[in-house]
């Protein structure tokens, strides 16, 4: 089992360096929920189908992440508080290449 380090800044501006497993088919939204870095019911509302934007985050490190799917792109076109570095956490599957990733959770809508 390999864990990677990810730094997640929560909606109160507090940074948390956490270990994320790469072998549990988890995505970033689920990692945030597993560490309870955002209250239940305010993140991952659609369950991870890129159909809400409650897991929107801003990618702050220069990691090359998988390209956006049409679904993610479409959802971000309708979401609020969107920046150039916005991604949906649910669409970012934890991968060894993401070691050292730094993200900030977008405000709750």
């Amino acid at each position: 089992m390999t864990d990677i380090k990810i730094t997640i800044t929560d909606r109160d501006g507090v940074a948390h360096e956490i270990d994320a497993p790469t072998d549990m088919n988890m995505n970033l939204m689920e990692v945030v929920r597993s560490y309870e870095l955002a209250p239940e019911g305010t993140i991952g509302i659609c369950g991870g189908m890129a159909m809400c934007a409650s897991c929107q985050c801003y990618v702050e490190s220069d990691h090359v992440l998988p390209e956006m799917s049409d679904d993610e792109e479409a959802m971000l076109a309708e979401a609020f508080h969107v920046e150039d570095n916005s991604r949906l956490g649910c669409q970012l599957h934890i991968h060894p290449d993401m070691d050292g990733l730094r993200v900030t959770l977008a405000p709750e809508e």
Partner: protein
Amino acid sequence: MIKTDILIIGAGPTGLFTVFEAGLLKLKCHLIDALPQPGGQCSEIYPKKPIYDIPAFPEVLAGDLVDNLMKQIEPFQPGFTLGERAQTIDKQEDGSFIVTTNKGTKHHAPVVAIAGGLGSFEPRKPPIPNIASYEDIGVEYIIRDPELYRDKNVIIAGGGDSALDWSIFLADVASEVTLVHRRNEFRGALDSVEKVQELKNQGRIKLITPAEVVDVLGDTHVNGVTIKQGEGTFNEPCDHFIPLFGLAPKLGPIGDWGLEIEKNAIKVDNSLDYQTNIPGIYAIGDVNTYPGKLKLILCGFHEATLMCQSAYQRIFPDKRYVMKYTTVGGVTGFDGTKKEAPKAVVKAID
């Protein structure tokens, strides 16, 4: 006044299956849902997506699951109040409840089962600081009566189907229609996108992209908006500003019913019957929480089943009852239908 045995708030899979389990106990159900069709999230958000963890269904589309549940509960003739949101609850002296919707429809039942999922679906409101003060004086998130916009100057924001469809519709009604969207691309049915393009070419719809409405203007009524495009901003006059950004679930008025809320969900007694802190009000499915809770359809089905047994005891405290297997007892509908296992023919060999 609609009267029933179990009033179910939320017509998603858990609410629908409750009708079946209640029906086996000869209890009648009525469902309220803010959406115009049953099925909850399964119908509204992901009807064409497959679900793989419904026991004995290796794969089932969410929409098909709802269709099957509707078929399964048909013999129990549930009532529906659709397109209305459960707003208030009043406990009566005899311990029963009257639930009134936002449209004033009243429902009376001895037991209320909240199967509200993530809440009722409400329009998503853009984070424009002063927008709330213009609601109903020129800002509308839902188009209820298109005639309101007759010969008016209307600005619509959004890039999905409803923004496109209403822009097309209002092009024939309003004096001017402007559509503002953050991207140059729209995601919608191809013919809607093409139609908007055609209306734009005819000068009947004005498109402002990529741009965003950042402020609403006006004193007693909206008279314009501020639009941000690139680094600059400009004001655009209008009589109505209609942000159409789809729907998102909110716990809503249920949160004010005096129920114990934890993690945006309703706390229940999971060691017994999924009853809330108010006796006679149960919460089942995604809307509830308890130690170890999982928001899964199959868990909602389980919770509904146990809840119905408790509801029966509450409604008929003096009656004795034990759970019967449908294979043994069959299913007798309120519509006179009866389904039962065929009797085996036993024949001795000479």
